């Protein structure tokens, strides 16, 4: 469908040009257009581009007064409607991409599905792609798997305001898209086919992700059609395992139950024993980044304490809680930390007590009364495709500990196996907390390590944050794919969002839930995509009228207790 012509009154360049829209046509920002011109040296050359600004004005008028006369029907003016186009691709008949401008006056048409593929290089991705949403013309947009799986690049970074930008929904949608296409991906990438792919999602807000395996009963037809348009089934995740911290116990003999509200069934408890903390070298994570930045000597104290703990454990000592460890340590503090200045020692102990209060509930005794061994509450991310770790109820310090401990164990496990396969996706929100722009901490180091080495380890970070400007640049810059949802225009001015381009920068504050700007290498322009509502329930209400009906929580709890 012809929509206008290439404008001759504004410069056309190989990278951008303007078009005048026909009087009976409408073109909007994000539309994809095509124009073809003949050039002596290159033959027929086709230009593909995206509308990034649409403008209208009364041409030929110089003053507001004339415009007023025009509105009174006393002054003629040419009502012009024109659009700025960012060229995404130029294609000559021989497949080359000459850097030439489109010719003014050339007819411009709206891109059809095939044109869209060419315009956004989806044809070059061949089968190495997964859908990442719908473009404004309702055709699917794709991500290049080479830039996700760590072949040419890896990691995805998502920015946006909490609540409006739907960052977590988008991250889970991308995972869903990936897992839905897994069979095809395995055919395209044989190395992926040898193993499964896993995902670890940290749930930081509400119990949004506790129903990933349950259909969303409130899903609209419109959303279903969106899934369909991308070749996806509107279904929940098939293989999910949920982990939640233990419910605070009132008595010593209370059962260890997950601390969740809307769902108990099928939720596993994650917790650590002091032995695991010692052996896995997790003592570091009991201290918040702020603790560590306050006293630089603390590192030494932690190192010494870790060595002491492991010695004691080797000697057969069993600590049932952090508290018992602290008490034992305090008794022999002079011997253990003789080398550490007393001020640092005090600071260390103070913080350890503080950690005990907040992280204590995550520690389970190594043995139950009568020396019965405690079952393992560790997280086995290989046992399900998607693993949701609910940390939203934990205090910040306990969140640091959990994220730090889990990431560390994954990295170490992968290092040990020496192969990137199976691939594991890590979905982590609030990166500004874990890898802030300034300050150094063990958890920041781990996140940075994943960002920089993760590709070779087969760990792909889908990181998210409200403000990328507050996250260590190396984490963001290592993400091949960058996504941006609704955010303040002032935030978008930071250089970390340069990929948006000037026109899109102004638009971020207007994005609605479900709309994302997606940037990926190989494409000169960020594209706006719309993704559907999750096909899985994101809260209890959405899970009703479906297979999963926890009619009464009490019964659930009784059942769980019965198992114990």
């Amino acid at each position, binding site marked *: 469908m012809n929509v206008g012509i290439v404008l001759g009154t504004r410069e056309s360049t190989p990278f951008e040009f303007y078009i005048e829209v026909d009087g009976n046509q409408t073109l909007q920002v994000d539309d994809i257009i095509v124009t073809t011109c003949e050039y002596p040296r290159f033959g027929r050359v086709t230009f593909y581009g995206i509308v990034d600004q649409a403008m209208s004005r009364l041409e*030929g008028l110089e*003053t507001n*007064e*004339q415009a007023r*006369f*025009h509105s*009174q*029907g*006393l*002054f*003629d*003016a040419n009502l012009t409607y024109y659009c700025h186009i960012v060229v995404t691709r130029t294609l000559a008949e021989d497949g080359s991409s000459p850097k030439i401008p489109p010719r003014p006056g050339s007819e411009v048409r709206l891109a059809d599905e095939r044109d869209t593929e060419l315009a956004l290089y989806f044809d070059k991705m061949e089968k190495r792609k997964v859908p990442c949403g719908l473009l404004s013309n309702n055709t699917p947009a794709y991500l290049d798997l080479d830039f996700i799986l760590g072949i040419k690049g890896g990691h995805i970074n998502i920015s946006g305001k909490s609540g409006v930008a739907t960052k977590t929904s988008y991250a889970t949608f991308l995972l869903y898209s990936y897992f839905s296409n897994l069979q095809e991906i395995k055919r395209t990438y044989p190395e992926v086919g040898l193993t499964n792919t896993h995902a670890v999602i940290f749930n930081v807000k509400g119990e949004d992700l506790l129903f990933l395996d349950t259909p969303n009963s409130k899903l609209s037809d419109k959303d279903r059609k969106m899934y369909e348009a991308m070749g996806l089934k509107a279904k929940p995740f098939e293989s999910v395992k949920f982990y939640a911290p233990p419910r605070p116990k009132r008595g010593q003999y209370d059962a260890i139950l997950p601390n969740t509200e809307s769902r108990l069934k099928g939720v596993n408890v994650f917790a650590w024993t002091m032995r695991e903390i010692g052996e896995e070298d997790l003592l570091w994570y009991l201290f918040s980044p702020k603790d560590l930045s306050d006293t630089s000597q603390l590192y030494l104290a932690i190192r010494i304490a870790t060595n002491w703990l492991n010695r004691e454990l080797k000697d057969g000592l069993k600590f049932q809680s952090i508290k018992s460890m602290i008490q034992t340590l305090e008794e022999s503090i002079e011997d253990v930390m003789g080398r550490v200045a007393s001020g640092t020692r005090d600071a260390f102990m103070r913080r350890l007590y503080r950690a005990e209060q907040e992280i204590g509930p995550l520690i389970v005794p190594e043995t139950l009364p009568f020396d019965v061994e405690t079952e393992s509450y560790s997280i086995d991310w290989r046992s399900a495709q998607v693993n949701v770790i609910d940390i939203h109820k934990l205090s910040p310090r306990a969140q640091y500990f959990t994220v730090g401990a889990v990431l560390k164990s994954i990295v170490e496990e992968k290092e040990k196996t020496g192969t990137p396969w199976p691939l594991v996706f890590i979905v982590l929100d609030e990166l500004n907390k874990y890898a802030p722009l300034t300050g150094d901490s063990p958890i920041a180091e781990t996140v940075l390590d994943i960002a920089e080495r993760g590709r070779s380890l087969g760990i792909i970070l889908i990181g998210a944050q409200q403000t990328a400007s507050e996250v260590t640049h190396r984490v963001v810059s290592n993400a091949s794919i960058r996504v941006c949802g609704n955010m303040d225009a002032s935030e978008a001015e930071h250089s970390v969002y340069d990929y948006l381009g000037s026109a899109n920068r102004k638009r971020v504050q207007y994005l609605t839930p479900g709309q994302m700007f997606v940037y990926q290498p190989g494409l000169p322009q960020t594209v706006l995509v719309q993704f559907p509502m999750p096909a899985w329930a994101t809260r209890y209400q959405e899970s009703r009228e479906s297979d999963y009906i926890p009619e009464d929580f009490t019964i659930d709890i009784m059942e769980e207790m019965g198992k114990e």
Partner: protein
Amino acid sequence: MNESLAIDFIKKLRAHQIWWDDSVREPINIKEDIPPADVETNVEISGEWKAIETEKIDHRKKIVIVDGVRRIDAHLILGDAGKSALLGEFAVGAFSLEDGKVIERIVECVIVLPPGISSSHPLSIGKAEYIPFSGGDSTEEGLYSSFIQRMRERERTLAFEFSRSGYTVIADGPLQVPFSEVGVTLGFIKSIQRYYLYGKYWDTVLSLRRGERTPIFLIRTGEDLPPKYSWYLRLKEPKYFESPFFGLVRLEAPSNLDIEYVKSLAQFAGGFLPYIISSSTLSSRAPENLAPLESLERRLRAMFHPADHIRATLRQLIAQAYEEVK
């Protein structure tokens, strides 16, 4: 092809010198072209001559304003006999008040040749095709007058076409004869270059307030020219420091119309035109230049071919013509 024809044309004319002078002024006598006039002041009222009030009206249906603009592109000196030719272009068009826009635009390029020299094909300079025709005489004024006359004929034809389709036409400038081919057309004369009224009648003209008009009078200008109805109208009152002519216009209507009908036209003009005047920021001829007239003129001028391009191409063609002669 066009180029070689143009070179032939230039060779034939022996055009060997060109100049362009935007300052060439229209000879004063072709603005209002009529010798002493005989005026009848009692065609509308027989008693005391005084200003007539009009009531504001916003009637735009089937009303068009017709106007033309012109530009001299070049003068050519032909041979060595002191003869010259004139290249110019004009555009005529119509602004529909009903649509609020220009609905007709025609541009024409002409080369006015002195009597005795003719050509059967046009002179192409770039995309402009100058149609040759012979002027009344070989003086500069004569050529210019012929050029203006041709434009006015086009204006009259356009006005008549609209008039025939049931439009009331307001045409810029004095009415063109013959009136039988004018239809319902009002001549709109912005510049008062000639007084048709004297004494107490002229006092009435100067005392007009906004929206007031004089009674209709009849102008007879000669045996061979039909008389026409006319009246003065104040579009805007002058401030204390402004000329008493400020905001004053004269209108004309063909005398073959019924006087009662002309009266209704005069009332309409008085109730409508003062409210569509331009401002001093809009037009250098404000307020007499109506806003739609200014708009139309701008849109018409935009149709002219780029002057510098015309001149450069013409210079080149002449050079080529002489190159071949050499």
